[in-house]
């Protein structure tokens, strides 16, 4: 007889987290929890599988197609697992004027993958994304949740080398404009 492997529900051992998310919203707004639940799964498993979609639907009393409908609308939930480091290159105008197209091309050559792909080791995924709100500190490379701003060619090499050593480097503080600089921050913290 073939034993089918059962998939352990994602939230089975995360009752507190689940309760905290559901309690954020009023009883009549239970459905609002769909995005935070999808995100927890995405963050932990780097994608949201069909089984998880069904699980979330079950929690919220929805049909799986309704959850999938929401999931497919947004660009940050993925059907296929992302690599450990998800490199997102902002490609919109201000970043493009600061060289993000060349940064993307360089990453393609370095990693051997193109937009939307993951390498065979599951270490890197590459994605071209739209405006990340880092126009004043362009170009920006987002790695997982972290912004690396003013990504010059040398900084980009530095970050990629660190990631290949399996280190996520500390991002440097970049501000510009009125909210000036690391110096100001330093002075304030010392005074």
């Amino acid at each position, binding site marked *: 007889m073939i034993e089918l492997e059962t998939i352990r529900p994602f939230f089975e051992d995360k009752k507190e987290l689940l309760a905290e998310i559901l309690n954020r919203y009023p009883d009549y707004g239970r459905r609002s929890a769909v995005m935070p639940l999808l995100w927890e799964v995405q963050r932990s498993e780097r994608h949201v599988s069909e089984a998880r979609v069904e699980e979330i639907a079950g929690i919220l009393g929805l049909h799986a197609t309704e959850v999938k409908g929401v999931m497919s609308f947004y660009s940050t939930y993925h059907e296929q697992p992302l690599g450990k480091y998800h490199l997102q290159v902002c490609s919109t105008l201000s970043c493009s004027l600061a060289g993000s197209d060349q940064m993307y091309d360089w990453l393609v050559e370095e990693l051997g993958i193109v937009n939307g792909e993951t390498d065979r080791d599951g270490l890197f995924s590459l994605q071209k994304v739209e405006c990340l709100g880092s126009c004043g*500190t362009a170009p920006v490379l987002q790695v997982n949740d972290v912004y690396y701003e003013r990504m010059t060619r040398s900084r980009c090499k530095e970050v990629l080398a660190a990631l290949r050593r399996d280190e996520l480097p500390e991002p440097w503080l970049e501000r510009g404009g*009125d909210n000036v600089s690391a110096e100001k921050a330093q002075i304030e913290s010392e005074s």
Partner: protein
Amino acid sequence: MEAPQQITSRKDPRFKVSMYEHVGVKNSWTLSYYLGHGGYQAAQKALTMQPSEIINEVKASGLRGRGGAGFPTGVKWSFMPPVDGRQRFLVCNADESEPGSFKDRYILEDDPHQLIEGLLIGGYAIGASKGVIYIRGEYYQGYQRLKQAVAEARQAGYLGSNIFESGFDFDVILHRGAGAYICGEETALMNSFEGLRANPRLKPPFPAQAGVYGLPTTINNVTSLASVVHIINNGADWFSSMGTDDSKGNKLYQISGSVERPGVYEMPMGASFRELIYDLAGGPTMAIKAIIPGGSSTPMLPFDDEHLDTPMDYGSIATKGSMLGTGGVILIPTEKCIVNATWNLVRFYAHESCGKCTPCREGIAGWMVKIYQKLVKGFGQEGDIELIEDMADKIRGKAFCPLADACLGPVQSSIEHFRGEYEYLIKNGKPMYSKSDWWSE
């Protein structure tokens, strides 16, 4: 006695930075820092006032919504129906995603209590005991700081029940987006918050009548709510002493593109592009041909003395054929092929089209982006410019929400001002300006 002159330049000694005073300072996001710099005093004052007094104060200040549309904030608040026992919501739109705009981000990251205080005051003014902050998913650091700030504010009693012994209860729900520009449109944002696909809703009913979960709702931008804190602290007269006839107060202008010191600069409204670009941002780094005045959707203007000396207020920019929008200025260098720059933005809008209505889905996300792709690859044909113009004419004003018209801003203005570059590209199969490497070492 002569009335004192309006403040319309940052060089005016009476001007002081308010919203961005603490941005960029280490630990400015903590409650202890905020309280040490006058934090929550405006809220304490506001909660001793009548809600109608606050609304009148904000109306008198002349504050217009800082998210782009510029609707007067106090007037919007007064649209809320009489209190009838139903739950009411004040939603903060922190889904900042218009290319060229990044002013809200640093408030979220470096001064989240300022936003919470503004939300508390606004909630009290409209009788809403629930606030929602819808923050775009990519702003993860902002979300973390905000989450910590909300926890601290709850702990200290600035959120919760009976705040400042006033009998007013207020709490905040933080809700993260997941990468969709359309969520900046207020009705799409409400659908997204409710756990639906973020398609815009038909208006009317307006949010005040039937908003989040069908309940009375007001939606304000981050910077509008931050402004309210300072209006309550310093008075409507202080606010309206800055700016011009139709545009009062101070505003966060952003500048990006080829300029020495890009970033966010707080200025009185009515200051000129020249002051922002040269006096604050240090001037362009290379020859410039076009200014996008207020975020990617606002029609671009030629970079010349006439436009540099235009005051950055609603009316003045409108007379030049563009819009103030979010105040996100982008400088496009002469060396950048204008068709390529426009294609970049068309591609953005095509990617972000939600697919609900035909003019946008087929017009922008289908035809428009394909024609531009063809042009930039050098396969343009005679008649393509006319085809774009014809399509733009058929799309404008006919889509369900403003996204499609937003895309037409750069399209139509680039053809109007730089038609020669389009013609050159079509005739020669290569752009007039061919600089292709923009990445610095």
